[in-house]
């Protein structure tokens, strides 16, 4: 399957400025520190639930930086903390959601944490049932194509959405919803990108009990879309693959299925205990090859990041997270009357 093995001819990541490379690092770091804080808050009994993106940051930040951030449509899944933060969701937004406090932007604190959504950022509101977002994202991509073809949108207007991106886990590709969404993307040659963040487990269920293929990307063939597998813990490799997919989408050449091999560094969520189904060595090994560490080393090796700069970033991150936590802890709960708002538009 040539699509899966072809050598990357161009490496768009080589054209990224040092400033951008550092900005990517910053977003990985900020997301990680925010995520870690959530675990602390959970251990302290201050929040009831957290679902973590740790181990998936390279894919997510790489994805965000490859699209027109805040303009292209993004339909994420619960593990996409780093993705949405790279699109503009702040630690404060997230903390308000963890605490279920007034001012929470995605849902007025109606949804559980990590159920992203922000019209301002062109992030579609998302639910818990997995894979439902895939055909919806295809619908957004369909709308873009429709608007172009019916003269409602200039195809080169970079101020308007030019693609729809969605993410889900490998387990969620078992859902019929995924099949049907991918099929529309193929049939209508939609400006659509589907990232499958393959971390080998759906809660406890390993990929072998989920599907009988070795690479999720092989499933692209069934839809006539481009399929590619990439190391999702190598941010620049992932960025390169994304750029190719984005170019395809912008140029009207159709959809891409990107399988990003990731590993979640934590249990599925704060409700989970992964010891019965994941060997400890596997988890430890993944921690040793952590995407952030690797990217750090890469940037240091190229002289882009220094220890001092790193300390600076760390401090800024801590400040932001501290401030966000304080703000959320002190924020009031939503008014009871808000229960009855927004049933009908």
């Amino acid at each position: 399957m040539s699509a899966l093995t072809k050598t990357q001819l161009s490496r768009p990541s080589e054209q990224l400025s040092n400033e951008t490379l550092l900005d990517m690092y910053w977003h990985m770091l900020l997301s990680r520190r925010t995520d870690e804080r959530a675990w602390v808050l959970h251990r302290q009994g201050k929040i009831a639930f957290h679902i973590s993106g740790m181990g998936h940051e390279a894919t997510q930040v790489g994805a965000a930086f490859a699209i027109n951030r805040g303009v292209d449509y993004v339909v994420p899944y619960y593990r996409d903390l780093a993705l949405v933060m790279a699109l503009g969701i702040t630690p404060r937004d997230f903390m308000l959601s963890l605490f279920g406090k007034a001012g929470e932007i995605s849902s007025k604190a109606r949804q559980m944490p990590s159920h992203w959504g922000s019209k301002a950022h062109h992030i579609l509101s998302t639910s818990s049932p997995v894979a439902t977002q895939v055909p919806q994202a295809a619908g957004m991509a369909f709308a873009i194509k429709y608007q172009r073809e019916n003269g409602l949108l200039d195809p080169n207007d970079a101020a308007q959405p030019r693609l729809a991106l969605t993410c889900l886990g490998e387990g969620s590709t078992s859902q019929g919803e995924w099949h049907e969404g991918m099929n529309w993307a193929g049939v209508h040659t939609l400006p659509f990108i589907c990232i499958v963040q393959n971390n080998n487990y759906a809660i406890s269920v390993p990929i072998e009990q989920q599907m009988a293929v070795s690479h999720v990307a092989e499933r692209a063939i069934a839809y006539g879309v481009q399929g590619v597998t990439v190391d999702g813990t190598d941010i620049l490799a992932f960025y390169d693959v994304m750029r190719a997919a984005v170019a395809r989408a912008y140029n009207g050449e159709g959809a891409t299925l990107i399988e990003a091999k990731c590993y979640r560094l934590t249990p599925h969520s704060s409700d989970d205990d992964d010891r019965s189904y994941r060997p400890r060595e596997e988890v430890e090994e993944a921690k040793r090859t952590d995407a952030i560490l690797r990217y750090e080393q890469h940037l240091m090796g190229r002289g882009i990041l220094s220890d001092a700069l790193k300390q600076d970033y760390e401090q800024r991150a801590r400040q932001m997270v501290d401030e966000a936590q304080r703000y959320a802890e002190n924020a009031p709960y939503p008014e009871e009357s808000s229960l009855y708002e927004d049933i009908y538009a």
Partner: protein
Amino acid sequence: MPEMTLIDALREAMDEELARDPRVFITGEDVGKRGGVFRATMGLYEKYGEKRIIDSPLAELSIVAIGIGAACAGLLPICEIQFADFIHPAFNQIVNEAAKMYYRSGGTWNVPMTIRAPYGGGIGGGLYHSQSVEAFFTHVPGLKVVIPSTPHDAKGLLKSAVRDPNPVLFFEPKKGYRSIKGEVPAGDYTVPLGKARHAREGSDLSVYAYGMMAHYAVQAAEQVAREDGIQCDVIDLRTLLPVDKESILASFKKTGKALIVYEDNLTMGYGAEIAAILSGEGFEYMDAPIRRLGAPDVPAVPFSHPLQEAFMPNPHKIATAMRDLAAY
């Protein structure tokens, strides 16, 4: 005013909405060249082209989900489900997604989508081409559920549905597609969602119905008026969700007796809610048991003709129930 069939009125509504607003498009199975298996979209493909009248893959959940996504991205989709019986694969997208999008996004993302589906029995369709499915969706806040019974309302309500900022399920009594005729104003007008129609005046008993049963109820009411001097107040509900409590209670206040007619299975059919409203908020007016005339609680409408007839409510059965209740 021209006389029109129900289906012609529906087509005219779509035609005018397509002409009015380039954001309106139609998708569903066989809606293009074939003009729909009931011919509801006939001629629209030729008029508006393949970029606006789009044959979908054979996959209902995606028809709805594409509609959700497209609606959120600024379009006004009309999604056709070929038969209401085939809406069930899309249940998750309708109930968990479309209905909850506005609420879950804190009132930011809304879904201005219309889902059309022919429903109902009496057409020899057997278990899977005869179903009434409205009861499921009338339990779901965030959805609107509309069922027209006259060509006039069909056109006006469908236009309202297309323009409504919420997901609207628009169920069409397919048995009446060609048999129900009526006057339809030319050009643009709307009938508001959420308001029942007073189909007939009477003070002996209130009859609540919708779709084909609203027709039958009026027929039966005329018959019992003629033959027995019983005057029925017939309410054609038209919009099932949000429930038009006001109209429901206003009629009951006058009559104190209620007969609710629906062709869906009796238990937990829409009539249950009407009965609950009347026995809750209309208790002081109650003069008789609340009567429901629904289809029996058997899995669905059978194909074999005599079984189908035994299953379906009809004017005769309705008239009998009216007489019975009037005599209470």
